[in-house]
């Protein structure tokens, strides 16, 4: 039997505990669907996301990584999302330099009240990544068994 598999991206979403993770919960309780390709990792704050985590995800074969935190000015820890924003800007410019498609990484500010935004953002992101296709440049094939 021939196995023609349609491409389903692997997407890692880092969500801060106070805003975006709660936004994801709200999306869930409002039944606002988004593709199952998105898998969420809970972190206390967007500033906990080490750029290394994102590189690790790409190395292990993720096709897209999205980080979501509180809106600027609303960080539970006062200033964490500002640090996150600066760090991600640096990471993105490095990824640009490496020639990794800019669209594979994304930062969004989603509050605990924005379930709809969470769902919409994830839908859009999955569409973008699906259109881009598989991450071939950063995946470390040695990681594959």
């Amino acid at each position, binding site marked *: 039997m021939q196995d023609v598999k349609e491409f389903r991206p692997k997407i890692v979403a880092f969500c801060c505990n106070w805003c975006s993770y709660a936004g994801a*919960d709200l999306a*869930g309780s409002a039944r606002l669907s988004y593709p199952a390709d998105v898998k*969420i*990792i809970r972190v*206390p704050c967007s500033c*906990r*996301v080490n750029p290394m985590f994102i590189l*690790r995800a790409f190395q292990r074969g993720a096709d897209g990584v999205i980080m979501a935190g509180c809106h600027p000015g609303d960080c539970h820890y006062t*200033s964490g999302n500002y640090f996150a924003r600066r760090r991600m800007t640096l990471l993105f410019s490095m990824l640009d330099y490496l020639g990794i498609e800019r669209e594979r990484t994304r930062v969004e500010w989603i509050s605990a009240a924005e379930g709809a935004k969470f769902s919409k953002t994830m839908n859009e992101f999955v569409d973008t990544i699906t259109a881009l296709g598989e991450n071939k440049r950063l995946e470390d094939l040695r990681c594959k068994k």
Partner: protein
Amino acid sequence: MQRIGVFICHCGTNIAATVDVKAVAEALSHEPGVVFSTDYQYMCSESGQTLMREAIREHKLTGVVVCSCSPRMHEATFRKAAEKEGLNPYMVEIANIREQVSWIHKDMKEATEKAVILGRAAIAKVHLNKPLKAGESPVTKRALVIGGGIAGIQTALDIAEAGFEVDIVEKEPTIGGKMAQIDKTFPTLDCAAYILTPKMVDVAQNEKIKIFSYSEVEAVKGFVGNFKVSIRKKARYVIEDKCTGCGLCTEKCPQKKVPNPFNMNLDTRRAIYIPFAQAVPKVAAIDADYCTMLKTGKCGVCSKICAAGAIDYQQKDEIVEREYGAIVAATGFNPLKPDKYNEYGYSTCPDVVTSLELERLMNAAGPTAGTLLRPSDKTHPHTLVFVQCVGSRCDAENEKGKPYCSKICCMYTAKHAMLIREKYPDTEVYVFYIDVRTPGKNFDEFYRRAVEQYGVHYIKGQVGKVVEENGKLKVQASDLLSGEQLHIDADMVVLATAVEPDKSARGIATMLTASMDTNDFFTEAHAKLRPVESPTAGIFLSGVCQGPKDIPETVSQASAAAAKVIGLLAKDKLTCNPCVANSDEMLCNGCSSCEKVCPYGAITYSDKEFRGPNRTTLIRRVASVNEAVCQGCGACTVACPSGAMDLKGFSNRQIMAEVDAICKM
């Protein structure tokens, strides 16, 4: 190797209708380290918890993964259950297969696959979990209230009522704040002094409350439960314990030309003064900028006539160190000075006044003894124009004003208009408004009374220019409903100026590491659910320092803040969040990167001895984290270039293990 138990919750049909729970349990049972895997109808129920506890006992589990609803719902429940069975609560992890799977996906195959992956990620994390123990810290059973206006007074009285000690630090020589300057209060029109001064007396007489008047907070150290605060008692050149408040000195002082800020500088006072008759403490103070004795060494009249011998020209500022368990910011507000709005002529025409100046001009204890007179020629005004929203509701790019609605102006203007029309029926009163905002109990009724019963002319539009000519104020304004430009010859113009946080608030917020918004209002921990707490533990917010409020709202919030303080002080020990940062001293290179990004000042550096090669000792500067202060955001962990800093419960290895598990599929 951990011995992990996995529990899949059906959540009735919430999960089980979309996720094949049995298949998930089966798939996860093959994961390394998993020694037990099952599913159950309601894991959070009593019997579900019992199931988990039995499994922990029987299978000697060292870690638990519950695949269920959001950890924000029941993480605490499952951790408590594990703890009862002797398992460290932080060895329990949740895979969220309800909000993130069953509720948003329809296809069972797809949902089941995702549930398995989320379960694997949680299992991968639990492998790296370590038992965590929450620390404890003691609580100093005393509170500090910064600011002695109605907010600070109410907070202090409520805390004292519960039996705890409270200090009030007030920068002026008396408590009372803005409310002491107000004449009548809306919507009941009772006298502010009649309702405020008894409270001030209560404060003075309460043994639990200590007032540091004419004092400022100089430095704050420590953390929730254990603050150490330096208070600067400014030299008032009067010995507080000796002064009887007789006021003789304030009548005899030869320096009469001192502007009187209590009356908004509409009259003068002496160089030695008691701000107002009901001041608490009723102790005089010398204004060093004007006192002839302090400036030239000649005079000494007050000292000679003071029978109590309370005058001390040699007095110096004094620093007092006090310890507190909780701190309440009640720093209040000031009305914006409208000197950037001279199209209204405030700086050039004395008859253009602010609303707070009008309060003094209508107050029986004010410069005109309660008779409304024009400041320029002391005559009775016949036509008055009120301008709303001066400096409020401006665009964020407008440098002159504030972007927010100041909230109280619509109501106090209605009050002013009504009082003037009632006392002086021969007046015409115009109010120019953009919107009339009256959400509050009996507020709109009050405003309608001003219009219907008192005949105040409310005009939708703004004033564009005020021109003083031949003793009149020619007011040019728009009437948007009639489409006309109006020209009114007025005798007085009253500007409802925006409320702005007191200038001292910014410095105090920095000392408290409490966050502020761009307008210098203190930020609350949660806009809806934690409105009287600062995000910084142990710091509470009372009154207008958090946002514009009227008196009833301020008092409610002040009592709410007091309740939160009482809840904190009632504890003997505080349990800390165990998911805090910690630094591996062997890896730390002493660079201070972590210290710089810490919003709480939880990281300190000290020199430590380490054993070097060949029995030498090395002294290295290394970071350490104060676990009682750290809130566990993790900013430092990413800033650390050497990988020394990590976050318990969300360690680098744990998060990477989750990443790997998700990407593996």
